[in-house]
C-alpha cells in the first residue's frame, strides 16, 4: 500500500543523504520526495511517498525515528490529510482548434498557462497525484513535449492533528512516573 510519510529533520549538511541512504541500505523504495526548510530554518520538512506492507512501513518509520537528527516522523496516511503535487507541462498548442482544446482542459482542471509561444504552452497545475495523472492522460494525445513534476507534499488536516495530540498526551504520561523501588 502507498504511504505518505512526513519527517521533520535538522536542516543541515548531509541530512537528505542520511534519509535516502537509509532507504537504499534497507531495500525500501522512495516513490517521491520533497524537501524544504520550515519557518524556523534550522528545520526542514521532508515528505516521502513509499509503499510496502504494514511490517515494512512500521520498520521504515522506526528506522527513520532512530536517525539522531530526525525530530518527528508521521505516517500521514493514517489520518485525514491533504496531498498536493505540482506539474509543469510543455504541450503542443498550434493556432486554431488544438489551442482551444488545450485551453478548455486548462480551465476544467483549474490549471494555468504560464508560458505561451506560437505552437506550445507551458501549463502549471497543482493537485492530487490522481488529478495530475488525469491531466497528463488527457494531454498525451495532443502531444506533451516535456514534463516536470514535483513529489507529493502533504499536511494533516487540522482536526486530525488535534485528535492525534490528545492521543499522544495520553500515551506519554507514563514516562513521568517514578519507579517504585520495591525490588
Amino acid at each position, binding site marked *: 500500500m502507498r504511504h505518505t510519510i512526513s519527517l521533520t529533520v535538522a536542516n543541515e549538511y548531509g541530512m537528505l543523504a542520511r534519509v535516502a541512504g537509509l532507504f537504499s541500505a534497507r531495500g525500501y523504495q522512495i516513490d517521491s520526495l520533497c524537501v524544504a526548510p520550515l519557518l524556523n530554518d534550522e528545520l526542514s520538512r521532508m515528505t516521502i511517498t513509499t509503499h510496502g506492507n504494514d511490517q515494512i512501513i512500521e520498520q521504515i518509520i522506526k528506522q527513520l525515528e532512530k536517525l*539522531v537528527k530526525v525530530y518527528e516522523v508521521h505516517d500521514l496516511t493514517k489520518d485525514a490529510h491533504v496531498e498536493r503535487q505540482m506539474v509543469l507541462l510543455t504541450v503542443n498548442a498550434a493556432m486554431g482548434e488544438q489551442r482551444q482544446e488545450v485551453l478548455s482542459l486548462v480551465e476544467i482542471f483549474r490549471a494555468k498557462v504560464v508560458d505561451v509561444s506560437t505552437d506550445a504552452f507551458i501549463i502549471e497545475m497543482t493537485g492530487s497525484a490522481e488529478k495530475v495523472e488525469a491531466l497528463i492522460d488527457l494531454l498525451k494525445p495532443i502531444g506533451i513535449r516535456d514534463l516536470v513534476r514535483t513529489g507529493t507534499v502533504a499536511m494533516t488536516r487540522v482536526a486530525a492533528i488535534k485528535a492525534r495530540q490528545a492521543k499522544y498526551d495520553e500515551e506519554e504520561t507514563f514516562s513521568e512516573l517514578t519507579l517504585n523501588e520495591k525490588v
Partner: protein
Amino acid sequence: MKYRGARIFLEALRCEGIDAVFGYPGGAVLHIYDEIGKCGTELGIKHYLVRHEQAALFAAAGYAQATGKTGVALVTSGPGGTNAVTGITNAFMDSLPIVVFTGQVPTHLIGMDAFQEADLTGMTRSCTKHNYLVKKVEDLAPIVKEAFYVANSGRPGPVLVDLPKDVTAAVTDFNYPEIVDVPSYKPQVYGDPKQIRRAVAAMMKAKRPVLYIGGGAITAGANEEVRLLAEKLNLPTTCTLMGLGGFPASHPLSLGMLGMHGGYWTNMAVNNSDLLISIGARFDDRVTGKLDEFAKDAKIIHVDIDPSNIGKNVKTDIPIVGDARTVTKQLLTELANQLEAGETIADKSEWHQQIADWKEQHPFWFHQDGDIIKPQYVIKELHRLTDGKAVVSADVGQHQMWTAQLYGFDNPRNWLNSGGLGAMGYGFPAGMGAAVARPGETCVAVVGDGGFQMTLMELATIKQYNIPIKVLVINNGFLGMVRQWQEQFYAHNYSQSDIAVQPDFVKLAQAYGVPAFRAEKVSEVTSTLQEALNTPGPALIEMKVAREENVFPIVPAGAALKDMILQ
C-alpha cells in the same frame, strides 16, 4: 583560555574522562599528534600506537565491551579512515559505544580529490549511529560533547567525528559545554506500565517459559535484575552469543547459549516454550533459524531500547520499549505487587524436568582420546586454570563457538567477540583493548590461526606497551568453520580453506619479543597454559589441535532450530 583545535580536542577528551586513545598518525592529524606529544601525559590521556587502523577500532571496541565506557580511536584521513570502516561497522552491529576521530583534508580542499582525501562522513553514514564533519573550530567542543553523548546513550553505537586539518590548527576559546541537549534524540528509558502489567501476568501464568537474554542486558547493566527475575519466577534462562555473562552460566536456571551452535536442550526449550521473554536481544537469524518454525507456540515479550528491533523479525505479543535494567526493575516491582495481591506463579516442575531430560539426552560432547589435542579440551582447561574469571575475547570461527559453549561465563563484560559483523581479526586487538581497560585481570584472546593472521601485527603494540594479553592460538591449519561447512554442506570440497602453510607462530612472537609457548600433545596443554598465564606481560600460546574437529550442534543456515545436527 584560547587554544588551537588540536589542544581543544585533547581537553575535550579529558573532560569526558578518557584515559586511553588507540590510534595511528598521518598527515591530516599531525596537529593533534603534536599536542599528544606535548601534553597528552599531563592531561592523563595515554595514546596507544597500534600497527593498523583496523586494530585501533577493534581495541577501542574491546575497551568498550570490557567496561561499558566509551572507546576512542584516532586515525588519519583517507586510508586511515577507510581502514577503520570494518571496525566501525563491527561496533555498529554490536552496539558498542565508540567515538572515532578521523583526520580530514583542510576545508578548502574538501571535494577537490586532494591527497589522502576520502568522504568519510559519506562512507560511514550507514555504519555509524551518527557522524559529524567539524567545519569550524568553534563547533569542535560542542560536537565532541554531543558525539560522546550520542555514542553511549540509548542503544549505544559508534559515532565518527571528521576533523579537517585547518580546524585543528585554528584557535578559539575553549569552553566545554556542561550539558548536552539533542531535542531530536530522546531514547525511551521507562517501559509502558500497561505492557509491564500484561507481561508480568503472562509470565506468572506461563507453564513453559524461557527467558532469553541478549547483549542489551549487559549494556544496561541489568544482570542482577535479570537474575532476580529468573529466580523469582523460576525461569529457565538462555543467553545469546552477545548476552553470555548476562546471566551466570553456572546458575541452576542457566540454559547456556541458544541458536545456530546453541545446546540441544536450549534450542528445544526455546522452540517448545509457551512464553519467550526477550530482554535486550534482537531475534537475529543466527538465533531463530527458520522464522516460520521458531517458537511457534510461544507468546513473545520483547524488551528493547531500540523500537526498530521490535517486530522486525518475529511478531511480538507484548512489546516493551525501554532500558533493559529499568524495565526489568519495573517487572520485578509489578511482580511483587501481584504476589502481594495474592496472585500465584504457575508450576513449572514438568517443564524443568523436560529440559533436564533433553540435556541428558544430548549434552555438549567431544572425545579427548589419544595424543592429539581437541580444541574443546583447551577451552575447558582454560576455564579451569582461570577459575572461569578471565576476560576472554574471541576471534570469529569454530574456536569462538567452542569458547562460547564451554568457557561458562558467570560475569558480564568478560566475554568479547564480534557477534553481529563476525569480523575475523577482532579477537586479538579487542583483547588488547580489554587488557588496557582492566589492568590486573587475566585477559586471554582466543584466536584461530586464520583470524590471528589478519591482525597479528599488533604483537608489536603489546610488546611496546607491555600489555598483558595472553594470545591463545587454536591452530588447526584450516579456516575451520569454512572447512566444517564445506564438509557438511559442500561434500568435503575444501576449496581454499586449507591454510597449513603458515608461519611458526612461536618464532613469530619471539621475533616481536613476545614470550611464546607451544603444546602439541594433550599432556602438554595444562602446563603450557599455566606457564603462559604465569608469565608477566604479553605472551602467546600455540595449541596444535585436531585439524578436522566440528562444532556441534549446528543448525544449518535457514533451517529450523529443531533440525539441528547433533553429530
